[in-house]
């Protein structure tokens, strides 16, 4: 069987699930799909940065900023739904651009530290400017512009599909090779200062804007935001665990990982929900376990397994990269 067809049909199935569930799905299905799509956006976004050697330890910064941008735009200026999403895209892009410029030619560790600090910093700002953000008490979305649950669910599905398309387009462009070089050269060439800032800025802007979009749609979905919710460590963690669990630096990995992470999250909530902190403990262990034992994630594990099996059955050897798309 041709692996290409399998992966193409899987992608199509994912696309249909994302876009048709809001139309036909049961409430539970719609809810699960919504959360999965949200995580797909965040995971693909995180993975885009990681592909360029940039590790974000504060993806909630983008998520939260997007949420606040949307709610501020709507509550203060009556901006309609779709326009508010655009606003959050712009806000996320600006933050991403700023991050790239601030960390400049410095190597990945500074980027990681800065993202960590930015998410903490934004949280403090959100708490300390109650006139603007509602402060620690949070803010409710003015219901006037609410487009209906269906539209919001649909928007998240479109966001997920769109984000995957962007990632796909990038993987097809020359950016892909620039990123590979940037990752490979982390140790040596960065010291010489030959870090292609242009690529770096572009990727953080794109990645930041889509992560913000996820935050914005989530706010429309929940109708409420506060600093703890917006800049929740949970967001940061799931957006990095999903790609790592699925398969970092690949197209399908973050998507697979987002599905798996959502399911694991739900399973632990159902199974261990009575134990406070259990689900994040599981995520922490997954993170450690993946780094140590499954560096290529589920995707790599499957590829390895198939590779071994195809060798055993002496059929045509399959390159490890098959099924990438």
């Amino acid at each position, binding site marked *: 069987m041709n692996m290409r067809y399998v992966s193409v049909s899987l992608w199509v199935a994912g696309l249909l699930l994302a876009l048709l569930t809001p139309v036909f799905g049961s409430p539970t299905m719609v809810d699960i799909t919504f959360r999965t799509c949200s995580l797909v956006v965040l995971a693909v976004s995180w993975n885009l940065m990681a592909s360029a050697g940039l*590790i974000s330890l504060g993806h909630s910064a983008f998520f939260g900023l997007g949420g606040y941008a949307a709610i501020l735009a709507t509550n203060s200026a009556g901006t309609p739904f779709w326009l508010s999403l655009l606003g959050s895209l712009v806000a996320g892009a600006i933050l991403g651009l700023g991050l790239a410029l601030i960390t400049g030619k410095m*190597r990945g560790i500074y980027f990681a530290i800065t993202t960590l600090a930015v998410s*903490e910093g934004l949280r403090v700002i959100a708490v300390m400017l109650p006139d603007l953000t509602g402060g620690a008490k949070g803010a409710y979305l003015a219901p006037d512009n609410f487009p209906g649950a269906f539209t919001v669910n649909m928007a998240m599905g479109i966001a997920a599909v769109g984000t995957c398309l962007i990632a796909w387009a990038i993987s097809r462009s020359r950016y892909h090779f620039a990123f590979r070089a940037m990752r490979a050269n982390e140790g040596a060439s960065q010291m010489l200062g030959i870090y292609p800032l242009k690529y770096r800025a572009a990727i953080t802007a794109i990645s930041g804007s889509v992560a913000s979009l996820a935050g914005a749609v989530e706010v429309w979905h929940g109708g409420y935001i506060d600093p703890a919710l917006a800049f929740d460590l949970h967001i940061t963690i799931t957006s990095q665990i999903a790609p790592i669990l699925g398969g970092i630096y690949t197209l399908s990995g973050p998507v697979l990982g987002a599905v798996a992470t959502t399911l694991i999250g739900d399973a632990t909530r159902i199974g261990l929900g009575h134990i406070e*902190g259990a689900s994040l*403990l599981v995520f922490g*262990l997954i993170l450690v376990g993946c780094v140590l034992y499954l560096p290529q994630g589920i995707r790599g594990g499957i590829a390895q397994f198939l590779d071994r099996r195809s060798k055993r059955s002496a059929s045509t050897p399959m390159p490890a990269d098959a099924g990438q798309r």
Partner: protein
Amino acid sequence: MDLIPQAFSDAVLLAGLYTLMAVGLSLGFGVVRIINFAHGEMIMLGAYGAFWLFTLFGVDPLISLPALIVVGYVVGWLLFKGFIAKVLDAPHINQILLTFGLGLAIQHIAIILWTGNARSATPVYATSSFLIGDVLVVHGRLVAFAVAVVMVAALIAWLRWSETGLATRAVAENRAAATLMGVDVRRIYALSFGVSCALGVATGVVVSFILTITPFMGFPMLVKAIAIVILGGLGSIPGTVIGALVLAFAETFASYYLPEGSGWAEGIAFVLIIGILILRPRGILGEAVET
């Protein structure tokens, strides 16, 4: 009333604590070349250790300090052997994610074991105070400062005058050359990571009677420690002291002089990190970063 002497005294006392908080992180990075994103969790564990020993058995945190330091060392050593040692030659991303994941796991084990409730150890000196002129000094803060000074001085003395301390510095400066002197680099790594974690735990013990203890306390402290460390130069102890002074003074004066200052003070670490990165004082950041 003039607040400057009071703010000055508060800032100095806080700087001592901050130095202790960051010096372990700095040591771990300077020697092992890995930023331990679980360092905040070591502080949290130390605080809980002191709290439980005080609450259950009435052991004063200052009495339990030495024992908890030993425990912290052992925990750090085990973390190194069990996890960190496996990613020493791995890409950066693996190292960062591993320590981040470890921190996450430790934090949530703490939540499971001890719930998210806020607690604090309350020995007599935690809240009692005295006046020097117009300046109010809380005994607990003074005690914390003294502990920090003693610990940091001991660390400096160890690095300067002991055989192993010298070897540790040699590894930090030049791994290969240190090996050629007969230094077992892996052993020094494990040892420094242990000492680094022990210093984190010591910070927690001291903090236990100053701040509220929750499983979440580690993360903001980690951010502050990182700010201090990159401000002063990674791996440099005098730099760490300077960084701690800067952060402590900035926070203290902000909370005295800005409207709602104590809230804004929490964001100063973030501003400092961004500020340093924008100004890019490569000289201060030090060579240790560019492995």
